[in-house]
């Protein structure tokens, strides 16, 4: 932190450069960082405590409604994959911004799942299967069965289960890509 009596205080972050302290304070000629990391500022308004927030925000150029987050390990490049309405992104800890994997204008990503080789994303009434490089492998279209595919889960055998708005029961895509529907006959009495 750099304090200047006649101007705003500056925060120096090696990754981001200089940024202005987001408060209208005139800070006198020094600040104190306590062992717990908190910074105490003597200001014209009194002593001010600056405390690091618990959560930090990932900055994406377009911040939209996030629909799903999913973790990755092993062969995956990033630690977290997430989607907003029209964007599918990955984020690596320490990077200043998330990386865009795919953009679906007029689409609506809903949920994500990851296994060792596939990133599954539901978008409106489709399920998109990406590889570890973010390349689209296959598109499954369920327009004939209902509307938005709200949720997906992978079982231990890597079968993909999902729910679809205005449709019956649960659906499953097995590892061969075949569709199975679980409805009343399979014990589910409600849609």
């Amino acid at each position, binding site marked *: 932190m750099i304090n200047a009596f006649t101007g705003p205080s500056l925060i120096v972050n090696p990754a981001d450069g200089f940024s202005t302290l987001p408060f209208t304070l005139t800070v006198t000629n020094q600040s104190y960082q306590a062992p717990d990391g908190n910074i105490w500022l003597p200001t014209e308004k009194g002593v001010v405590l600056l405390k690091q*927030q618990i959560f930090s*925000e*990932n900055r*994406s150029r377009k911040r939209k409604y996030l629909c799903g987050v999913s*973790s990755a390990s092993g062969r995956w490049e990033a630690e977290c994959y997430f989607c907003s309405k029209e964007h599918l992104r990955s984020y690596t800890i320490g990077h200043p911004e998330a990386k865009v994997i795919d953009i679906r204008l007029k689409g609506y990503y809903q949920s994500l799942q990851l296994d060792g080789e596939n990133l599954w994303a539901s978008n409106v009434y489709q399920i998109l299967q990406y590889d570890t490089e973010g390349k689209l492998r296959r598109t499954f279209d369920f327009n004939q069965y209902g509307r938005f595919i*709200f949720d997906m889960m992978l079982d231990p055998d890597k079968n993909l289960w999902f729910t679809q708005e205005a449709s019956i029961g649960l659906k499953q895509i097995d590892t061969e890509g075949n569709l199975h529907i679980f409805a009343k006959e399979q014990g*589910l009495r409600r849609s």
Partner: protein
Amino acid sequence: MGTNGIYAGSNTVESYLYFKAYDDSIFRKFTKPVRFAYEGALRIEDIHEYNGVIWLASSVGLLRQDEHGIERVELGERFNNLLAKTVKCQEDTPYVWFSNAYGLVQYNSETGEFNLYDESEGLPSNTINTRGLLLNDDGVWVGTASGLAFTHNIFNEASPTPSPRIIRFVADGQSVRVESLSKKAVSPNPFIEILISSPSYPSNKVQYQYKLDDEENWQEMPAGNLLTFPKFTGGNYTMASEPKSSATTHGALRIFVIFHQRGIL
């Protein structure tokens, strides 16, 4: 997905949960009689099974189901009957995380205590979306209406909340410096006001309890952290307070004032 099979949530109280074992071909009703009162319709939003307990994020709050039955996790008037969108259990800890309209809640299933994380702790928004919560070895990821948030802190270790201070002490309308309390005489049976605060942010989320030395139980501090004693009888008093602000902190017991009521002494 559970340890032994797949759970499916529904939107009727009679059949709000189904289960299919991995080696089974059909789903079976897995509901228990709902005996607690709630407002509106019961709808299951998210499910997480951990150590034999099924945690349900529902339209009426966080629910807990085990072999004996289902109950709603009582979190006080503010959070009861409030839509919970997502739920996750943090492995090897008693913590159950869920989201509601106020932000992200960390519930301790052993003690019943809970902590709320919201925009004041760095979340871009208090609105956390369905499937917008992820706990992994890296930390906690939160998908909000205004972007992704992350913390390395996995909340297993707590640090003490800074000790509170008396920032105002008033006896019969007269301000008294705390440092001079033991020397300064106050009128008999005074009306006392004590305002306390911890040098912590956000200060309005610090919860305090207090007791006088002749009391056995801790009492919740009133709203605004302003204590009032209408008629203090003569004697020597020691007051203690215990502050607590979030899961990353724990109470730091601190005796912060000893005052003598002179005039009667």
